[in-house]
């Protein structure tokens, strides 16, 4: 019985793509980018724990041995060349070991190396988002555009997350290179989806690019990450990843609805 409940608690395979109460750690990765971020976090944590153990050992040892009772006459050593060299070189080697994977990840994240298959524009407004799918346009006026508002606090249906759900989700194909163009129409916003490892500031008068490639189908939640006014907390982002075929169907349906 206990084993069973433990199993339920720790061995569930359902992946976590939204924030949950009292969550420690990241949400499960949906893109290679997020996987890289999580791996880097674990890499760095190795050094953090090493340093923590070493420093606390020194601290406790110093307090234990060198106090008035056990050691009434203090030593007067003020200089030691060897130890000074060691404590300068060693930390810089540690920093080097942290810097290498860190920069590798950083530059792999903003590489514009592959041609994307789809461009989606996320336009921040006070306080909703507009999404434009303009790859299928044949004129400036006609465009697949929709607004994405939050579901109000007193309105969610059973199973919807409070203040995380929106009325129109961004539908994207899985396993496809996407180009997100992020820009606001009024004040600065930020388009962030933790599972995808994406946080892109929207700056007025400028359009920012971020590339994602969602690896599995699912619904991913995020929130506005740049303080944008009164309803900053009520501007969530919901990305729904579907198969490429379903995506094509969705687009053609939307195009019919709009015309």
């Amino acid at each position, binding site marked *: 019985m206990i084993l069973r409940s433990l199993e339920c608690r720790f061995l569930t395979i359902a992946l976590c793509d939204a924030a949950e109460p009292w969550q420690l750690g990241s949400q499960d990765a949906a893109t290679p980018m997020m996987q890289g971020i999580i791996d880097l976090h674990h890499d760095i944590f190795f050094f953090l724990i090493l340093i923590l153990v070493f420093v606390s050992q020194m601290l406790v040892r110093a307090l234990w041995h060198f106090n008035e009772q056990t050691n009434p006459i203090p030593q007067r050593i003020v200089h030691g060349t060897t130890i000074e060299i060691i404590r300068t070189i060693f930390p810089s080697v540690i920093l080097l070991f942290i810097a290498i994977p860190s920069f590798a990840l950083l530059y792999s994240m903003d590489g514009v190396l592959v*041609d994307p298959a789809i*461009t989606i*524009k996320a336009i921040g407004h006070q306080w909703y988002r507009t999404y434009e799918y303009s790859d299928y346009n044949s004129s400036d006026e006609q465009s697949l555009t929709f607004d994405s508002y939050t579901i109000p606090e007193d309105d969610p249906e059973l199973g919807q997350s409070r203040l995380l759900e929106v009325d129109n989700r961004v539908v994207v194909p899985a396993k496809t290179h996407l180009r997100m163009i992020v820009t606001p129409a009024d004040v600065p916003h930020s388009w962030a989806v933790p599972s995808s490892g994406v946080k892109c500031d929207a700056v007025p008068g*400028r*359009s*920012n690019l971020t590339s994602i490639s969602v690896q599995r189908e699912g619904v991913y939640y995020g929130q506005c990450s740049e303080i944008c006014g009164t309803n900053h907390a009520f501007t969530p982002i919901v990305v729904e990843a579907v198969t*490429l075929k379903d995506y*094509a169907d969705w687009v053609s349906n939307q195009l019919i609805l709009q015309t």
Partner: protein
Amino acid sequence: MAAEAKAPSLAEEYSLPPQEAPVEKAVEDKPQEAESIAVTNDETPQADETATAVEVNPETSEVQEVADKSEVEDTNPAAEETTETAEEEAEEKPEIKIETAPADFRFPTTNQTRHCFTRYVEYHRCVAAKGEDAPECDKFAKYYRSLCPGEWVERWNEQRENGTFPGPL
């Protein structure tokens, strides 16, 4: 014989029918020449960014792969299903082509503002040089519509009408 036809091996499934092979080869040789010419042409106009410069930005295999996959997925299901989906698709409307503006090495940064602006200017210079209906300008139109927020395009269109557009048209 019938059993074989029902369950072909993996290799058979993916191999081309024998009659088509020679035809394919004959076709294959020519595009390679054409490509090499295109590449040599491409080097020179890159320096001066005139609108008339033919930008050869071949879609990568990535995008084509994606498109191919969708086609394969369409044709894959069992015989009964294919007839149904074929009927549905016949009723169904605009064919969705999964492609967008390619990555441009003039704009490798996060900031894509200039990418959008440049594509917009390129389109209008192309139209100015080749005429309103020139088919070679269509791709620039596709690119800037993909990259620019609708609001910006509207504003720039207005500015062009008023003659206050700040770019080199």
